């Protein structure tokens, strides 16, 4: 039932549109509320015009164990400025007032959601206009917690597949997944190592034997050239740390955003987008 409902969504339409144009998806990650709510709202609302096809908004968490220094720091900045899970949902609501097409995936860790209440959270995701969830610390073994309620409510569940996901695990990992598959191209945490294009090619080929879903590749992509070379072998690329680092570069000594922050980030995003669509 849910599978049917999930066959025509903002995410499936997005990938279908891109496939028709023989183009690749550019997925951009930003931490919600980084460096503060207002700036974050401007950053996120400007992403589609800068060429982003799908937006991932990170729900800040005090202990982001799968993230590297860049995203850890962005989470801390957001939390210091009062960001919460409820306000992350507000960001989605505000975005949806002017954009009803660009898919939004919320990415985060389970504890804030568990405190909020899993059922209440998925309901509010739906009404706010989010399309899918990536919850890093909920493996298939814990699907009853949030994945199943999310599917029932009509949200996509997207999981990370990694180089250490061997053949014995891949079916379990892909179970319940829809929308797209997120392949992590390096072992380790976000942002620290470079993804190698030839590794990506092999890994994506292997994954295609197991799934017909679009495959987006992320972790360690930093430049337009890099984005282009990875995009050649996949259906989309994800960039997070490099964007979030640019947010940090555009803060003054007190941690306040500089005048040019939003335009600098959008300019970088535009360059990546150009790289991806030239791929």
């Amino acid at each position, binding site marked *: 039932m849910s599978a049917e409902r999930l066959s025509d969504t903002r995410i499936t339409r997005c990938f279908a549109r891109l496939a028709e144009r023989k183009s690749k998806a550019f997925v951009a990650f930003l931490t919600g509320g980084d460096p503060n709510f207002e700036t974050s709202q401007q950053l996120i609302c400007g992403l589609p015009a800068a060429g982003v096809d799908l937006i991932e908004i990170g729900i800040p*968490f*005090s*202990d*982001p*164990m*799968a993230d*590297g*220094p860049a995203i*850890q720091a962005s989470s*801390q900045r957001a*939390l210091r400025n009062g960001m*919460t*899970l*409820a306000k992350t949902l507000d960001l989605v609501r505000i975005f949806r007032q002017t954009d009803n097409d660009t898919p939004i995936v919320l990415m985060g*860790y*389970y*504890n*804030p*959601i*568990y*405190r*909020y209440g899993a059922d209440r959270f998925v309901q509010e995701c739906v009404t706010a206009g989010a399309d899918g969830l990536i919850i*890093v*610390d*909920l*493996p298939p*073994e*814990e699907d009853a917690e949030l994945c199943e309620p999310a599917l029932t409510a009509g949200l996509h569940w997207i*999981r*990370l*597949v*990694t180089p*250490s*996901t*061997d053949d014995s*695990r891949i079916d379990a*990992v892909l179970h319940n997944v829809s929308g797209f598959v997120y392949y*992590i191209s390096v*072992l*380790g*945490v976000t942002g*620290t*190592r470079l993804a190698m294009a030839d590794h990506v090619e092999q890994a994506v080929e292997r994954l295609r034997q197991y799934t017909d879903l679009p495959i987006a590749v992320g972790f360690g992509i930093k430049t337009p050239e890099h984005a282009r070379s990875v995009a050649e072998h996949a259906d989309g690329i994800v960039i997070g740390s490099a964007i979030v680092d640019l947010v940090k570069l555009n803060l003054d000594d007190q941690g306040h955003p500089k005048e040019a922050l939003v335009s600098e980030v959008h300019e970088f995003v535009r360059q990546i987008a150009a790289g991806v669509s030239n791929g």
Partner: protein
Amino acid sequence: MSSIDKSVTDSYRSGPDETGHFGIYGGRFVAETLMPLILNVEKSYRAACQDPNFQNEFDYYAEHYIGRPSPLYHAARLSEHLGGPKIYFKRDELNHTGAHKINNTLGQILLARRMKKTRIIAETGAGQHGVATATVCALFDLPCVVYMGETDIERQAPNVFRMKLLGAEVVPVTSGTGTLKDAMNEALRDWVANVDTTFYIIGTVAGPHPYPEMVRNFQSVIGNETREQILAAENRLPDCLVACIGGGSNAMGLFHPFLDHSDIRIIGVEAAGLGIDTGKHAASITGGQPGVLHGNRTFLLQTDDGQIIDAHSISAGLDYPGIGPEHSWLHETGRVEYVSITDHEALEAFQLCCQTEGIIPALEPAHALAHVMKIAGEFDQDQILVMNMCGRGDKDVFSVAEALGQQI
């Protein structure tokens, strides 16, 4: 269902279930990058448990290297002073390296060797687990990297130096708030990036399944010895068990063999820091709510938004914002009582122990002792109470002097 089946399912000792849950607590809440690793640890641990050589090897080093069994000592002067039950100390402070932590690091490094791992990582708060890990790494000639919060490195300089003497690399952790929880995050990050070579030795009964179960089993040497020793000394089991709780490993180790003796009162003592209502404490059960961190569901110190709050305690070893999931379950079922003791009360107990028994306890078991002082009056003189003296106080003399306003 046969009566044997029933007694198994009715047992407090049968957890965790196959998926690593104690009731709703525990589990495997980790990123997919970690999943193959912890499944592999579990598989290797199960195989090791089937192999008598593994237990033999553990027993050999426990006896000849750690110095086990540790004595079960009747603290006669203290018992008399308090006028309550007959108090015994399980003296794990006499272990090599001065605490119970080495029981667990020995077990885990033997497992790492069986798995042919060539590099060991660990997190540490007070530095006790770091020292115990660095020690067994020196013994077995394995490189050792210990993650330690920047704040803790400043507070625990002597242990940092000990680890270095033992050949370990101590990596300062600045992320988050630079304390134990962040050190654990950083160790997990290291692990996912070094999948093939590295074994992560977790220092308490926390982390994803199978760690809470595995660490408990290694530490159960404490309770199993206590059982034999008290039967030898008194020809009966104790009436009460008391242990302090940081993550809860020394407590689980003492409690576990006794859980099904329902007439034994069992008490876990958390650190109340400056007082529960000040918010500056480390009492996850008394002052926290269930949540998910470091791979398991358990009681955590957290905000309404689910952000983890730093713990506070005069005892660096109790300074953890969570607690092992099995304790959360034992709390929920009511089998174990969880109470808390302030910095101030622990300091009083610390001094009393020095003066009446000539034992300088670590600040962690001083919390357990402070609670023993509180409840002594509830017992008759022919009743028996066992307290886990899980660490010695050499490491704490500086913080105690400071707290007492004395210069050394």
